[in-house]
């Protein structure tokens, strides 16, 4: 048991981070090089101003007409993403690990806040899941991968919550939490979760074309 824990705490964590960052760099480099060869328009029409303009409208909640048309989905989506990124990044228990390993630390969430946010992530996932099943167009669009990535996100948060609450079997939960978190991290660059770093790219392009060439809004 302790061995596996050590493995998860050490080499696997390292591995996950390396795959995560390495994967992102690899995917980004590949797509940017590919654009050089086959999609020169992406560079030719790049406009920093309009790219930023477009980005801003789409990272501010309700910044686009599309988001305003679906208020519940938009609220859940923003709450979900904020918590999804916020919790792992500012969780006291995580910072401690960084402190131990690298002697670096930063601001942390209170335990209570982290738990509330975790619940938000989990409830959002439930919402997404139900929506995928209930809403006909989304149901039609959804493929197995869409459901699997939901599960991928749920696992570390559910186990993390369990561990944090100290419920029965929390040691196992902690271990599962670490393993599933590492799995999530390592898979981000290679699944649809890569939308996290493709988002800026597609928006930069859309914003540049719409703004600089076509003189129109894209939100």
């Amino acid at each position, binding site marked *: 048991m302790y061995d596996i824990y050590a493995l998860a705490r050490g080499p696997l964590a390292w591995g996950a981070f390396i795959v995560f960052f390495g994967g992102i760099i690899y995917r980004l480099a590949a797509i940017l090089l590919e654009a050089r060869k086959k999609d020169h328009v992406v560079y030719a029409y790049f406009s920093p101003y309009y790219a930023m303009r477009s980005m801003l409208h789409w990272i501010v909640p309700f910044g686009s007409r599309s988001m305003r048309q679906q208020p519940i989905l938009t609220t859940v989506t923003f709450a979900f993403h904020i918590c999804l990124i916020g919790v792992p990044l500012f969780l006291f228990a995580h910072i401690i690990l960084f402190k131990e390993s690298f002697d670096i630390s930063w601001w942390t969430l209170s335990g209570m806040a982290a738990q509330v946010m975790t619940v938000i992530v989990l409830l959002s996932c439930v919402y997404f899941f139900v929506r995928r099943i209930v809403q006909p167009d989304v149901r039609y*669009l959804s493929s197995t991968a869409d459901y699997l990535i939901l599960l991928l996100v749920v696992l570390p948060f559910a186990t993390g919550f369990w561990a944090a609450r100290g419920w029965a079997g929390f040691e196992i939960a902690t271990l599962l939490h670490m393993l599933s978190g590492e799995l999530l991290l390592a898979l981000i660059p290679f699944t649809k979760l890569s939308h996290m770093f493709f988002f800026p790219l597609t928006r930069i392009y859309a914003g540049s074309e719409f703004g600089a060439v076509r003189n*129109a809004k894209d939100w």
Partner: protein
Amino acid sequence: MATTEPKANDEPIVLDDAIIEGAEKLSEEDIAQVINDMIRTEGGARFKAYLNTCMSCGYCSGACHYYLSRDKEPRLAPAAKVKQTLGEFVRKKGRVSRETLMRSCEIAFTDCNLCRRCMMYCPFGIDVAFLMLFVRRVCHKLGVVPRYIQDTAHSHSATMNQMWVQEDEWIDTLQWQEDEARDEIPDLRIPLEKEGADVYYSVIGPEPKFRAQLIYQAAVLMHAAGIDWTMTEFPGWDNSDMCMYTGDIEMTARLKKVHFESALRLRSKRIVMGECGHAFRSVYDVGNRFLGWKMPPIEVVHAVAFYDELLAEGRLKIARKFERPVTFHDPCNIVRGQGLHEKARSVVRQSCETFIEMEPNREHNFCCCAGGGVINCGPPYKNKRVKSNRVKAEQLMAAREKGAEVVIAPCHNCHGGLEDIIHHYKIDIEIKFLIDILFECMEK
């Protein structure tokens, strides 16, 4: 888990004999080879990023008039069109059946106007129109294209215009319109091949063929505004382009080369084009790019912007405003395509007494469902086209209820599309070009 079959579609699976004939000639190997070649050579960064990034979130669904008009049929959601076509191509590594190919062809050609509205509703800015064009290009390469639009593409290739207009017929039409107009304004001219004229005026094939009065009106407007203008005697006069919509981009390139080079040969300062949406798209940010011209090598001005400029400079004066209340349909290709919505409104406000906005409007206006070559796929799809734009009918009816008696649409395709919608849904509203209004109201 995952997908369920959508509810039965009320359309027969394939309507077009040319699609069936084309597909019958192909084996699955042929299909796979072309699809994979295309993905390898032309499926670049955008193609991959879009396909990888779509989160199947459905934000785009409500953007599409097909989806909204057809009772939220899931298969008509923009992302669903991608899933059924390219999604299958990629998932099956190109080895799709003829049926899938034929369905893909119909989806890409007749269930999408390439209007880019959904791109504005997707958090990632995924350009479904771009992806549908990719499907169309695959269909072109496989020879599986709806008959009517393929015939139009043939006309383009043989005559450099959309309507099989022969060289002499074009000149004859201009001279005929010049004669007609001289009854009204004796010293009016339609100057042909006038080297060095400030403005090179170009139109689309259907103008000489069916709507010659538009050339007449343009000539009167140019005359009234004192514009030094010309038209070309030679092929190149037609700025339209259905090849961009069949996926024959090599032919698009040729058409645009002929068009631009005729304006450059006459050394005009700019090209002013008639009220057409898709032609503007082809000239402004599609055809020129295929040729390596980052921007058009000579300034292109859409009629709407030109009218606005003439009014602002006082070269064109309104004698009395158009009395009946009007509403305005924003054509996607000049609004999402070049942001001409405020200029259009300025022209409408200056020339009409009462202007009633349609909702939604400007960049958010719904497409007419004729664009993207859909109306050019011809009669087999007319019924579907009209049924797939109930939202446009509702939009028009709402404007009608607010009092609008006329809808102005500065785009040829929009006219065709809106006409059919007005007729089918029995809406009591008349459709006009902006120049119809100006012609009636300006000082001549």
